[in-house]
C-alpha cells in the first residue's frame, strides 16, 4: 500500500466537507447578527416598547454594570456561584438516587411492580409546587433549592435508568451467567454498561431541570442567587435585568452541556461512530 497521499477525489471530498462546515458557521453567525440587530432597530424606531421587550444594548449595559459594580445583592460571580452550587448538588444527588433506584427496580420485577404505581403518582405531581413545601421545611437557605433540584432530576434519571436496565439484551445477560457471572457481576458488568447510554442521555436533560429547580426555588424565597436577581428585576419592572440574568443562566447551561458531552464521548467510546452521509 502506498502511504497516505490523498487522491484527488479524497481531497475534493475533504474540501467539500470543509466548505460545508464554513457555510454552517457563517449562516449561524449571520442569523444571530440579523436577529439581534432587528430587535435593537425595531425598539429604536418605536415598533417595540423597550419597557416590555428591553433591547440588546440595554441588556449589555446591565451585564456590564453587574460585572463591574455588582448586583444589588452582591457581586455577580458570588450570586452565580450560589445558584451553581445548588444546581450541581441537586444534579449530583438526584442523578445518583435516580441511577441507584432505577437499576434496583429494573433488576427486581416484584419491587418494580409494587413501586411503579407510586412513582407514576409522584411523577404526575407538578414538582415545582413542592418548592413551597421545601421552603417551609428547609428555610430560605440552600437546602430548599437543592431539594427542589433533586426531585426535578430524580424522576428523569430514574425513568431512563429503569428503561435502560429493562432494555439490556437478554442474550447478553444469559451469556454472562453461563460464562460464570454472579447476579451482582451481571448488574455491574452487563446491565450497568448497557443502561449507560440511556442514563447519559437523561443527564443532558436533567442538568437543565436541576437549574430550573434551583432558580424556581430562589424565586419562591431566597437571600442569594440568580433566581432572586430575576425576581428582583421583575419587581422593579427591569426587563433588561431579566434578560441579562437569562443570558447568564444560558451560558452556564451551555457550559454544562459541553462538559457532559465530553464525559459521554469518553464513556461511550465503544459505540460505533455515526457515519456522515454527504448529500450530493
Amino acid at each position: 500500500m502506498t502511504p497516505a497521499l490523498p487522491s484527488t477525489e479524497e481531497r475534493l471530498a475533504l474540501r467539500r466537507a470543509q466548505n460545508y462546515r464554513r457555510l454552517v458557521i457563517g449562516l449561524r453567525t449571520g442569523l444571530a447578527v440579523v436577529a439581534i440587530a432587528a430587535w435593537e432597530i425595531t425598539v429604536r424606531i418605536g415598533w417595540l416598547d423597550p419597557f416590555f421587550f428591553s433591547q440588546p444594548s440595554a441588556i449589555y449595559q446591565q451585564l456590564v454594570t453587574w460585572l463591574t459594580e455588582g448586583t444589588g445583592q452582591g457581586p455577580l460571580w458570588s450570586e452565580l456561584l450560589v445558584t451553581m452550587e445548588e444546581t450541581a448538588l441537586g444534579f449530583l444527588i438526584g442523578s445518583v438516587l435516580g441511577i441507584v433506584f432505577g437499576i434496583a427496580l429494573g433488576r427486581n420485577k416484584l419491587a418494580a411492580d409494587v413501586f411503579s404505581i407510586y412513582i407514576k403518582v409522584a411523577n404526575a405531581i407538578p414538582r415545582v409546587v413542592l418548592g413551597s413545601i421545601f421552603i417551609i421545611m428547609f428555610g430560605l437557605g440552600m437546602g430548599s433549592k437543592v431539594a427542589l433540584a433533586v426531585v426535578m432530576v430524580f424522576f428523569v434519571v430514574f425513568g431512563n435508568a429503569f428503561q435502560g436496565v429493562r432494555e439490556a439484551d437478554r442474550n447478553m445477560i444469559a451469556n454472562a451467567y453461563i460464562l460464570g457471572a454472579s447476579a451482582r457481576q451481571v448488574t455491574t458488568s452487563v446491565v450497568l454498561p448497557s443502561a449507560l447510554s440511556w442514563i447519559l442521555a437523561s443527564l443532558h436533560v436533567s442538568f437543565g431541570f436541576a437549574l430550573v429547580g434551583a432558580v424556581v426555588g430562589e424565586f419562591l424565597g431566597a437571600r442569594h442567587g440568580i433566581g432572586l436577581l430575576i425576581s428582583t428585576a421583575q419587581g422593579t419592572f427591569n426587563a433588561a435585568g431579566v434578560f441579562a440574568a437569562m443570558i447568564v443562566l444560558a451560558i452556564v447551561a451551555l457550559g454544562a452541556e459541553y462538559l457532559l458531552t465530553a464525559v459521554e464521548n469518553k464513556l461511550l467510546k465503544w459505540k460505533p461512530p455515526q457515519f456522515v452521509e454527504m448529500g450530493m
Partner: protein
Amino acid sequence: MSIPAIELNNVGRKFVSPQGKVTLALRDFSLNVKEGEFCAIVGPTGCGKSTTLGMITGLNPPSSGSVKVFGKPVTGIDPKIGFVFQADAVFPWKSVLDNVASGPIFRGLDPSAARDKAADWVRRVGLAGFEHHYPHQLSGGMRKRVALAQTFINEPAILLMDEPFSALDVQTRAMMQEELLGLWSERKASVVFVTHDIDEAITLADRVVVLTRGPGSVKSVYDIPLPRPRATEARYTPEFIELSRQIWADLKAEVSI
C-alpha cells in the same frame, strides 16, 4: 458403560403466557449424549430445539421429566457448560481481549492472569492483532470468533450451540465450521448443536437428531460415519449426499403443511 454427559428423559416443557395460555414446546423428549460426542439437532421452526438447550443450561427448567448432566440432575447453571448464542452476545463495550477474558474474571481468576490466557485464545481463533478492537469494528465472522474464544477459554466439558452460524454468509459459515471442528477436536467436549442447516449438521456431528414439528419429540436419529478430521470438502462425497437426502426426506414431512 460410562455415564452419558447429557441425559434428557421424557422431558416436556410448557410455556405459560401472562394471559394463562399454555403452549407445549416439547413432549416426551429423550436424548443421550456421550462424553466427547458431537450431536446435532435439526427440526422445523418452532419445534423446541432451542428449548432443549435452555433446559440443559438450567436457565429454563423442564416442566416434566428429568435432565441430568454427568449423572447429576441439573439445578442451576453448571460451570462445566459453555453456550454459543445465535445472536451476538459479546459485550459491545469491551475490547476483544476483555470479552474473551470475562469468563475467567467472572470465575474469580486474577484479571491480569485472565488477560494473558485470553490473549492466547484470541490468537488461537485467528484474531491476533485485533485484541484492542471493539466488537463493532469487526465483521460478523470475527465477532463469532470472539464468541467462540469467550466460550472455549472456560474449557467447557459440555458445549451447547444455538444456531451459532446462521447469521453468517455461506463462505464465512464454512470457515467457521472448520474452525469449530479444529477447536473441538483438541479437547472433545460433548456438543449439542442446534441448526436449521442439514449440511451443517452432517458436516459437524457424529449423530444427527431430527425433531418432529412442535410440540417436538425425536423423529429419527442418524449416525454420521464420515471420517474425521472432516473438511468442508466432505460434503461432496456420495455418503454425505445420501445422508443429506434421507434427513431432508424426514424433515420435509414435518415442515410441509
